[in-house]
């Protein structure tokens, strides 16, 4: 399954994560739900749904953490019968991203957490200088940007 990225600097660290952790699916997105990179998804509509759900879960679990513990929860793990989900915030010089991965029985939560730390470090090292950043996601441009990113990921740009 092919990996596609909106910004080229993400590809190296994300590819290493997928290989090392044995992830089946991986998704890097902006906390607003804008997709930045994906691995393992076949359809744009699946990426769009996963991004919307991941952004929603991240926002609500962060707030729950703030209310319970005074600070947002760092990560979320759900173990299904055959597949598991790991969702966490990845801090980088370019701001916070949300990372979602799905893994099966050939991997483990320990490996995913270990290689997630390396992914965060890899993204921090690969991120272009801050001055090159484009503006933040604005509500009025959200749909346009989302469609553009999905088009880039699925080769319709």
């Amino acid at each position: 399954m092919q990996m596609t990225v909106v910004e080229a600097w993400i590809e190296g660290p994300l590819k290493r994560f997928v290989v090392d952790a044995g992830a089946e699916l991986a998704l890097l997105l902006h906390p607003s739900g804008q997709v930045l990179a994906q691995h393992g998804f076949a359809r744009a509509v699946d990426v769009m749904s996963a991004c919307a759900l991941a952004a929603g879960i991240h926002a609500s679990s962060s707030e729950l953490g703030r209310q319970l513990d005074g600070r947002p929860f760092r990560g979320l793990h759900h173990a299904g019968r055959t597949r598991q989900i790991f969702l966490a915030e990845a801090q980088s010089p370019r701001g916070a991203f949300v990372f979602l991965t799905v893994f099966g029985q050939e991997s483990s939560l320990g490996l995913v957490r270990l290689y997630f730390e390396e992914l965060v470090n890899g993204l921090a090292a690969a991120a272009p200088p801050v001055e090159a950043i484009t503006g933040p996601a604005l509500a009025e441009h959200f749909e346009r940007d989302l469609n553009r990113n999905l088009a880039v990921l699925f080769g319709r740009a």
Partner: protein
Amino acid sequence: MSARPFSSILDALTRQRWVTAALVVSERDGIVVESNLQIGQSGDRVAALAASLYRKARLSARAAGLGAVSFMQLEAPGGRICAVGGGDLVLVVVAEPAVNVGLVRVELLRAVAELLAVGGEVA
């Protein structure tokens, strides 16, 4: 119930000369259940990788028709990692190259029964 149910097993292992760390790890998750570590050692990293290695060794042995893995040893220039499994738990020892592997093996195999007993109580 004790907050450190595996402490007697881990203490017995880390008392061995040249043993630098001992961990009880969940084989499925690769997460540390309990550990005796020295300052600066990354228990999470060792646990995740050793559990993954042990699990793959166990599955490989089964696929090759060799039966259950009783003892696994990884030898590297900087030291050794030894592991035995008991139920869903893996007992991992990290040691320096000079360690007496025979002695560690005996201690680990002896500890498996205790690991299963304590693991059953904890569960």
